């Protein structure tokens, strides 16, 4: 083998290296191909060159073609297919030359240098994946096997690196498929390798396939995920991650099923209550049954709203009349006087009635509790609702004594309460704020608070 570098044996090679180093890959490709044709046609020069020189030339051709492809945004460009073909042909020639080199000097030789084949296999895999189609897996297996025959460890390492790279962006559909293809390729090419290190890597790859199946999250994929983890344990019985994964998937299954059953049962029970109440409302009931039924309806709507909020169900907007809403509320809270003011309080506005009811009732209940705490006589208790439809705003003001200035800034934080600890969870206003978020709106404490009470603004 000649240790003399190619550019010293043939100074013309420098003309190729210059554009290659300057990343003018199209020019480098043309010059490298011309150089190869020339040395092949010139017996004297050709005879002087060693296999490692030819390997070098083909590496440069392959990488120039790859570089040109990348500069043009992939193989789908006008001459993309031709460049792809030139790349793969040069890689093929490179492999033939190195295979011969290995057979001539199996223990040590120039063919053992790993940087070139690492790059070539990595780029070959990228190109094959870019053109994903029915035959992608087969093509990838073919190329990996060709590298594997010469550099077994290198080929598997490059394959695993490519797998991890694609896995890092698995949220994108293309990368998702690439991971699946590369994982399948890995399992196929290592199927008959008894090596313990490979067995561990196979278990790892099966774990990745299990994650992929689980990640897909469609019907039946949990079974597929479990299947892969079970295979991973067969491949590597000491794989503790796989054992934990099985426990996790099975545990999650139980929890999901329990939640599903619970939701089914509560949904059916609530729907039954709604149905029964609707049936009652259609009957001509003697007094005071209609009032009781109305209170039950209000309570049930609140339960339904809370049930939806706990599941963070999206808001369902429809026009409601604020006056009618407040009038209904005033019947439920007889110990407070309601006053509606505003330019157009008879108009309607768009909201989710159940969510709006929770927010409004949170404010009313807080006010009611404050009236009690501050011993405000019933005839003096007043709740004023200012409706400004043009600004999408509702203001609720009470005369229940106001909020302690020390906690005003934190009033919407969870577990903050003005009441005695045993009387409150401190979640009411925090939930009201979250619900206003679901309504694409917000709730805040007015900057200037009334002297004798509190004022909240709801913006829709």
């Amino acid at each position, binding site marked *: 083998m000649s240790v003399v570098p190619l550019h010293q044996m043939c100074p013309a090679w420098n003309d190729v290296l210059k554009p290659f180093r300057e990343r003018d890959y199209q020019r480098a490709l043309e010059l490298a191909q011309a150089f190869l044709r020339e040395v092949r046609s010139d017996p004297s020069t050709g005879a002087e060159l060693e296999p490692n020189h030819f390997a070098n030339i083909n590496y440069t051709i392959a990488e120039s073609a790859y570089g040109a492809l990348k500069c043009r945004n992939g193989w789908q460009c006008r001459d993309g297919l031709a460049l792809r073909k030139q790349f793969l042909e040069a890689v093929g020639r490179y492999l033939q030359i190195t295979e011969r080199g290995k057979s001539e000097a199996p223990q040590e030789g120039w063919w053992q240098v790993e940087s070139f084949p690492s790059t070539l296999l990595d780029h070959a895999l990228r190109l094959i994946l870019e053109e994903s189609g029915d035959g992608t897996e087969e093509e990838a297996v073919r190329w990996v096997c060709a590298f594997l025959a010469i550099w077994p460890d290198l080929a598997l390492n490059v394959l695993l690196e490519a797998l991890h790279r694609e896995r890092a962006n698995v949220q994108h559909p293309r990368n998702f498929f690439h991971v699946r293809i590369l994982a399948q390729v890995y399992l196929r090419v290592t199927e008959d390798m008894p090596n313990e290190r490979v067995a561990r890597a196979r278990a790892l790859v099966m774990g990745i396939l299990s994650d992929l199946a689980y990640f897909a999250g469609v019907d039946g994929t949990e079974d597929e995920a479990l299947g892969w983890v079970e295979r991973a344990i067969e491949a590597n019985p000491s794989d503790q991650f796989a054992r934990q994964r099985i426990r996790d998937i099975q545990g999650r299954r139980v929890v999901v099923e329990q939640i599903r059953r619970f939701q089914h049962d509560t949904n059916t029970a609530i*729907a039954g209550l709604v149905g029964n109440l609707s*049936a009652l409302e259609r009957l001509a009931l003697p007094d005071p049954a209609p009032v009781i039924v109305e209170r039950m309806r209000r309570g049930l709507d609140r339960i339904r709203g809370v049930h939806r909020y706990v599941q963070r169900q999206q808001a369902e907007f429809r026009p409601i009349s604020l006056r009618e809403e407040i009038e209904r509320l005033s019947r439920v809270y007889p110990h407070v006087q309601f006053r509606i003011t505003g330019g157009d309080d008879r108009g309607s506005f768009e909201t989710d009635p159940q969510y709006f009811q929770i927010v409004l009732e949170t404010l009313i209940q807080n006010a009611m509790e404050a009236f009690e705490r501050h011993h405000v006589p019933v005839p003096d208790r007043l709740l004023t609702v200012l409706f400004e439809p043009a600004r999408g705003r509702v203001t609720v003001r009470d005369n229940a004594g106001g909020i302690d200035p020390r906690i005003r800034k934190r009033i919407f934080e969870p577990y903050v309460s003005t009441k005695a600890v045993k009387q409150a969870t401190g979640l009411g206003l925090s939930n009201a704020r979250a619900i206003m978020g679901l309504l694409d709106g917000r709730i805040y404490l007015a900057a200037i608070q009334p002297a004798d009470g509190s004022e909240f603004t709801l913006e829709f």
Partner: protein
Amino acid sequence: MSEETARILFMDDEPQSDVVIQALARLREGGFIVDFVESLGEAIEGYYSRYYDVFILDIDMSHQSIDEDGNGVEVLKLFVSLHNQTKVILFSGAGTVEHWFQAASAHCYAYIHKLDDDPETGADSIGRLVDIVQASLATRPVPTSPGRVAPPTRALLVGDDADLIMDARAVITEALGAEWQIVESSLIAALDADPAAQGVVVLAQRRFQMRPRVRDVLARLLAVAPRPQTIVCCEGLDDLRASILYVANQHPFRMLDVANPQWLAQLGKSLNEAHIWYAQQEIQQADPGAIRRVHIVLPEDVEEATRAALEDMEWNIGDDADN
């Protein structure tokens, strides 16, 4: 059949639940004849035993005493495979995101969650059920066009999420060909579009707000099917049940979950199917195995000889035919 004598088959495995009792009562009050069954097998048998104007099916049938595989969505698929304009309303307190998408793509007439009020009127789920049964009876069967009708090579692509629109555009071009003209529109601007002049309509939007204006857009774009077919792509999340089922109730040709990593591949396939079924009602792929399991109940007045001949008949359907 007149509305007064319309016959409904109602399948639910919890006959004692209040919501089922009330629903049956309201339907019967409404003048419908309602046959009630508790199992999937009885529902399938019912399909063959007499004509039903509407089927109301529960999804989760885990309470049924008979050990049968499947759920209401499976029965829906079977019924639509047997006749493509069978009206099936799914009425369920359970169901998963997958069920919602599968039911929409299998052409359920409606999917009512037992807990959900009507987004427009506020009517409770039983009231909605009665309204939808009445609406289904008023809906005439859509005659299938004789022969294939070539769709105009125009696609309307609607949505506000730039990344989804870009992905969907690439898939439309790949699936239908570069000669197709793709017109993009934001969701609200689609109110001014002319969906009927398109070869296909694709809505790609992660989530639809349940505001009246958005509902108007959805109703308008989906009302044109089957000429053209409309494919809706959105996120399949539990908390979006209201909007997902709203879309399902507008009769999309396909409904795809963009959270599924395979949604673009599914979109490509759906576009080809939408192209094939342009101006026609789709016939779902029949499940011969399911058909074969059906025990057909013969009317009482069938002659004994005919009955014996039918009972002895070999049913050479599907894989078992080779055995």
